């Protein structure tokens, strides 16, 4: 019997957070902390949906080594990210870049709020009418209800 592929992927999640393995750590705690922060923003591109901080996959281990080596060599976070994107494509960044192709995803939620607030403000500036006075139809309906 085959194991459902999805569940097999889930199984891979297990042996986790190998990123914390003392064997691989950088000796400088400041650099190690920077590397760990970067790990959380980098996707393990062969896994289902995990950062390289979580994944035990071979590729994740290699990527961790690469990132640690570059951090130790004094490269900046932006440089390391650029290097990874060149090699693996934008897919590797868990935080999508703010580019024209992604603009809709970044801006739509805020546009909804701004648009909604604008509607509320416009509505508020219109003097509230009708709250206390009734339209002729409403008067007629009351009369119907009262008499009927």
């Amino acid at each position, binding site marked *: *019997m*085959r*194991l*459902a*592929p*999805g*569940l*097999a*992927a*889930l*199984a891979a*999640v*297990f*042996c*986790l*957070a190998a990123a*914390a*393995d*003392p064997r691989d750590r950088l000796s400088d705690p400041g650099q190690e902390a920077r590397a760990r922060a970067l790990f*959380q*923003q980098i*996707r393990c591109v062969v*896994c*289902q*949906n*995990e*950062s390289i901080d*979580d994944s035990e996959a071979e590729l994740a281990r290699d990527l961790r080594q690469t990132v640690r080596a570059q951090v130790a060599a004094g490269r900046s976070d932006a440089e390391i990210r650029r290097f990874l994107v060149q090699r693996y*494509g*934008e*897919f*590797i*960044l*868990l*935080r*999508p870049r703010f580019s024209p*192709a*992604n603009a*809709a*995803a*970044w801006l*739509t*939620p*805020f546009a*909804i*709020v701004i648009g*909604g*607030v604008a509607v*509320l403000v416009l*509505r*508020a500036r219109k003097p*509230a009418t*009708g*709250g206390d006075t009734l339209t002729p139809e409403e008067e007629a309906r009351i009369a119907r209800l009262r008499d009927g």
Partner: protein
Amino acid sequence: MTAELGSFALVLALVLSLAQAGLSIAGRVRGSAALAGAGEGAAAGAFLGVAFAFFALMIAFVTSDFSVANVAENSHTAKPLLYKIAGVWGSHDGSMLLWCLALTGFGAVIALGGEGLPARLKASAVATQGVLGALFLAYAVFASNPLIRLANPPVEGASMNPVLQDPFLAIHPPFLYAGYVGMSVVYSLAVAALIEGRIDAAWARWVRPWALASWSLLTIGITLGSFWAYYELGWGGWWAWDPVENASFMPWLAATALLHSAVVTEKRGALAAWTVFLALTAFTFSMLGAFLVRSGVLMSVHAFAVSPKRGMLLLSILGVAAGGGFGLFAWRAPSLPPGGLFAPISRETALVINNLFVSAAVTTVLLGTLYPLIRQALTGDMASFGPPYFNLTFTPLMAMVLLILPIGPLLAWKRADLLGALQRLWAAALIALAAALLVLALNHPAKAFAAIGVGLGVWLVTGSLAEVADRARLGRVRIGEALRRLGRLPRGAWGMTLAHVGVGVFVIGASFETAWRVEAARTLGIGDQMSLGAYQLTLKRVGPADGPNFEAERALISVTKDGREVCQATPARRFYPVQRQTTSKVSICPPGLSDIYVVLGDRRDGPAGQPVWLVRAYWNRLSRLIFGGPLIMALGGAISLSDRRLRIGLPQRAARPVLEPAE
């Protein structure tokens, strides 16, 4: 034999669902109570059919009948009974059967229980529920029947993924599915109201208990799932913004917005069209989730077995149900009468703002989940929308709505006094500010955003309590009088307060845990120590701890603080021979609000050849609030649901609203 009877019952249920739809429509069109009654009977019959099929599958699992394909793929004789039962809904096909069980079950409840509903509205709602039932049952019968036999049954089953063999995961799908599918009733009532062209306070009153119950069940379901991920997966995280998690979060957010807008429709007759729109949206998101989880279009750690053909079928069902609902909405909504008017500063406006922000937040989750797909389809390149995206969009949007949340309940309907409401909250605000500053000063490294988060959580708790105190006129009248007033507050009010306090408790825990989690990892031999924040962890011994279907080694680790033992952690590492898979069993201690979370890693050879184990540990401070908060919210929902004003089918209720004090 039982499997064949089960299959037969499932087909019968499909036919009865079609009959339910047909008879109810005929009853509605001809105004015939007899036909409508027959439709209601068919709804009950459809439920009994699905229930029979469900129990037939359960019997096959419990008796390890491996001639049933689903059982052979997902069960094993050595598996504990609880997981044999949970195996029923552990697979794609079985979980769809659970979905159908809930769908027809709720259909039967409105058919047999909705006495207070007007006959025409009820017939339309039962018909809609029948159509939904027929769609999903047709899928179950023709594309995903879990009762199909195998020609050559194996001697032993393939068993279930060990990760899923966990009591919390076993009970989490029933809650989740009851919540997802509970929204179908809200959907059916919305469709029925659009057909009848009447959406008023009475309609909102029928919808609210269903929305509230589904929301509460979904809250519990998501929390159980999150807690399972937290302690079973061994990485100490509780929410990863994984597409499957998002799929359950979207209906929850839509239901949250619906609950708040339905209040406005119920009390003030306003926002009727918007409430209907949200009612349709909530169930659409439930169906979207069912599709996303099963189609394999998304990359997720939790997805079910992937099947493009089934994905297409589920997408078609989603298209028909959502297209039908929203099409009807576009056609009928413009003719709905406008509701009550309200001033810019009023309870209504506060609830509209809630809806605005929650809608923006749900859009964020939707975009973050689907945008990579859309972009890939349009341009061919792949992009990832991981946790950093949600932290930058969802979190600030929610923070803003939570900031104004405590003010809402203090505003009057129609026209309110904002300054007066703020004056009644100054003490609550002061406590929250003090809490934020204290947290900032006492924790290292100092993290401003986390401190703001904790302050926000405290503000939600104190602000909600201030509102209750204000209602009781605490401090302005004698204490006995205040207590008497507290006792007379309607349960709905207590429910709201508890739910809001629960949000606050969650926010405190989430902010604290995320910012100030302490992590340590070391290889330890017997007798070695490692430090974790203020604690010392000593590995005392490692021994065998085999179970019914696994081999295991378990460590005993003593956790001490200032030389005194706080608790003993017993993390284990299990090997499941059937699946040839190793898992780790996390140990969490001590009792309290913060967790010492210990994971036993692999065994290695130490420098002197002695065995050492990789031990990872986290000190997750206030982490239990993360799960406690949502449970408080669900409890609030349940208490609100027990308010007699919300009970369905109380005929005298129609006359009561006039006599109630404005809240």
